[in-house]
């Protein structure tokens, strides 16, 4: 083996790694460490929700019934579908199918935008119904105070989730650009893989938000 061959390494391999496999494992691990901080970040909000729901269960069920349940259910389906297209994007990247990768990234972004559009419609509905906590808030007198706690949590939790979606769309735009330019290859698809991890995580947060916010008062007639 010539010295040139011995020192040859793939263009995408950073010099501190032994090989592409190790490089990919490090990228995945790093993303997971970040996601753990995200789990605990959202976890604090879920803990807050649990405390107040325990204290004011009737106000929470009454306020939950005011949410647009078909919109929440549709958005759950939209996000799960976007997770499928994301997983298929990673799959296409693994196989070096650039055109398919680009198609799936665009589909993922389109579904992400659809989610945000439906969410915006919901926020508009709640604004029109005077369900924004504060001076203009209107609700049945019995639960007037504590329903505001529910709606505060609703707007903070879904708002932070929506912010994560917007950031996710930004990441996907960069991935689309890199894929189109040919930076993403069969050998080097880590960016798509770790972006996918982030996207799926945001999906998981919604999987918990949906029943806890939209469905807790449905059985009361």
């Amino acid at each position, binding site marked *: 083996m010539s010295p040139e061959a011995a020192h040859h390494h793939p263009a995408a391999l950073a010099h501190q790694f032994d090989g592409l496999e190790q490089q990919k494992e490090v990228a995945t691990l790093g993303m997971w460490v970040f996601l753990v901080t995200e789990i605990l970040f959202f976890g604090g909000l879920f803990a807050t929700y649990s405390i107040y729901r325990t204290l004011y269960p009737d106000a929470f069920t009454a306020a939950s019934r005011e949410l647009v349940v078909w919109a929440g259910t549709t958005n759950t*389906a939209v996000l799960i579908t976007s997770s499928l297209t994301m997983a298929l994007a990673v799959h296409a990247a693994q196989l070096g199918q650039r055109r398919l990768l680009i198609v799936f990234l665009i589909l993922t972004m389109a579904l992400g935008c659809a989610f945000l559009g439906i969410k915006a419609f919901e926020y508009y509905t709640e604004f029109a119904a005077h369900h924004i906590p504060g001076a203009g808030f209107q609700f049945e007198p019995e639960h007037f105070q504590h329903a505001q706690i529910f709606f505060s949590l609703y707007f903070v939790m879904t708002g932070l989730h929506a912010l994560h979606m917007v950031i996710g769309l930004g990441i996907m735009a960069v991935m689309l650009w890199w894929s189109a330019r040919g930076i993403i290859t069969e050998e080097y698809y880590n960016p798509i893989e770790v972006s996918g991890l982030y996207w799926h995580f945001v999906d998981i947060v919604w999987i*918990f938000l949906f029943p806890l916010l939209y469905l807790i008062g449905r059985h009361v007639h």
Partner: protein
Amino acid sequence: MSAHILPRRVYYTVFAVLMVSTYITWQISYFDLGPLNTIAALAIAVFKAVLVVLFFMHVRYSTPLTWAVVIGGVFWLGIMLSLTLGDYLTRGWGTFG
């Protein structure tokens, strides 16, 4: 180069199960099951999350170190939730008048 490229049908199957689970969660919430409503909703949500983590996020095929980080994250979340709720859920006993 990667050791684990899953066949596409794995993703389609997981997707189908996630959609059916969503439908079940939605429908079940219209029945009055008492405390079971919340338990069922959370059980299905956890089931869905585990599917996403294992297959969509490829943790099933990841290194033991990744497993340790994922389980560690969930474990610490469990500490936060259980200690917090261990306080709040046990305040209503009123034995001290």
